[in-house]
């Protein structure tokens, strides 16, 4: 989150700034190639502080690549990325973002609680603080009773909630999620969508969210970014003007169906459906 003080400092220190707040993520003309394959081609994208931006597009269009470039797990071949006002590398070493993958990627040899503690451990928090924080996060994802369990004893949906708790444990400004619910059944997925929105509202974290599901993208997001097939570029950015708080009733609104149709038409217009 960009605090008011930070914004003020930026305005004082830099040249006149037109926008209200600088974007949490700014991707400028980024191209990324893997040998012969162009995964991203001239992609530009701003993610405003506090927003929830979904990336949607066909398989292999470079969504994961874009997320990895933002996370400094990959270098762009050309172009520039700014995360929280810094280089992605600096943002990574400052632990400005948390990451959630399609696979929960929990460590089998640690209890659920100690999995959530992992990033705090690496950041040098002492034991009591770590523990308190992990318990707080487990309460947030409603897994308090499973603190002492092993990941293998949890269902896929529960494991993914642990991964979210772990990603949020150190209160990062930014949450990067790569198809976090892609491997879950429809019922669990809808439940976790609600839970994620709840967490997002409580923590005011900025989210970049990759998904294959149009309804999911529309339901969750402030903006849906539709990407073209390889080489990936941004086709269209669709603001989602559904009322908040969103709940199960949201999925029955006419506007919801209109937006789902709009995303679908955009994908179809590009010959993707």
């Amino acid at each position: 989150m960009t605090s008011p003080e930070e914004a003020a400092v930026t305005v004082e220190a830099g040249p006149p700034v037109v926008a209200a707040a600088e974007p949490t993520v700014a991707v400028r003309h980024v191209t990324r190639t893997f040998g012969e394959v162009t995964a991203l081609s001239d992609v530009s994208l701003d993610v405003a502080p506090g927003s929830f931006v979904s990336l949607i597009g066909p398989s292999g269009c470079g969504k994961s690549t874009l997320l990895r470039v933002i996370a400094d797990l990959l270098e762009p071949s050309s172009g520039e990325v700014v995360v929280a006002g810094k280089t992605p590398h600096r943002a990574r070493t400052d632990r400005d973002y948390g990451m959630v993958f399609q696979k929960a990627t929990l460590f089998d040899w640690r209890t659920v609680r100690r999995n959530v503690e992992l990033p705090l451990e690496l950041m040098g928090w002492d034991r009591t603080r770590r523990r308190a924080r992990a318990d707080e996060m487990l309460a947030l994802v409603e897994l308090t009773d499973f603190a002492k369990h092993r990941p293998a004893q949890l269902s896929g949906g529960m494991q993914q909630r642990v991964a979210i708790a772990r990603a949020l444990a150190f209160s990062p400004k930014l949450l990067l999620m790569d198809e976090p619910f892609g491997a879950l059944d429809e019922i669990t997925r809808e439940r976790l969508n609600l839970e994620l929105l709840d967490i997002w509202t409580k923590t005011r974290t900025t989210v970049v969210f990759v998904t294959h599901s149009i309804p999911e993208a529309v339901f969750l997001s402030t903006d849906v970014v539709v990407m073209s097939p390889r080489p990936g570029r941004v086709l269209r950015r669709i603001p989602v003007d559904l009322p908040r708080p969103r709940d199960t009733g949201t999925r029955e609104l006419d506007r919801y169906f209109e937006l789902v149709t709009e995303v679908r038409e955009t994908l179809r217009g590009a010959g993707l459906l």
Partner: protein
Amino acid sequence: MSRRGRTAINLVAILAGLAVLWEAYRAFALATGNMWPGTDVALPVAVRGSGNAQQFPHVWEPVLALGRPYRGGGETLGAFLLGQVGYTLREVLAGFVLGSLLGFLLGTLFAHSRLAERSLMPYVIASQTVPFIAFAPILVVGFNSLESFPRWSGVAALSMYLVFFPMTVNTLRGLRSAPATAEELMRSYAASWWTRLWKLRVPAAVPYLFVGMKIGATAAVVGAIVGELSAPSSQGLGAAIFSFGRVSNNSVQLFATTLVAGLVGIASFSTVALLERAVLRAYAGAGPAR
């Protein structure tokens, strides 16, 4: 029936089957005078060798011999061999611990640096393709000529030499076994190489480390016995095998000693296997599919 009960019954059945085969061969060879019936082709092993010395005893004879004095009078063979086991185990333990440690360090070095792996791994592999029987005496005698080392250290060195290789290979494999997303997760936390090693790679490698150590546990026993055999030494199971086999030519005592050596190997392996079970249970479901 419990799985353990079935395993025990299987084991007894296999041992009984082998004993029956052994006795059948013995009876057959006695009946035909060590010849294939109707030919003048000799059977592979004669029940009695030159000078009528028994070289194919009843199965139970070596077992009974353990309870009898092994030369003239005094100490029983069993008590004597127990003492030799003690001597050999010291070499086994030293070889196993040092070899496992060396293997772990080499595996970690190779996991850290592709350059180190590419430049040193060929030598590690080459070291194992040289028949170790050939240079066992050189190693043992060479070590023993160093004044500051105890007499058994040369044999321990040979044992270590057999242990470090499976440990190196399995450590390297294990350290590389963490899924790519787990590595990415650690990178997203900007974790240092050491942190990644201790918090992710080593824990992920634990099941592989046990594979290496289980192979090493038996290799350590083989190394120690061959070491004792190949360099003239006066103590240890290898020395006993040498003296009963080559010097006194007493096959009953030789078989008894071989039996004990086999038990030492099994015990060595089982100790590591038990430790593995305890540790992996604490891990709850970690490791490669079993």
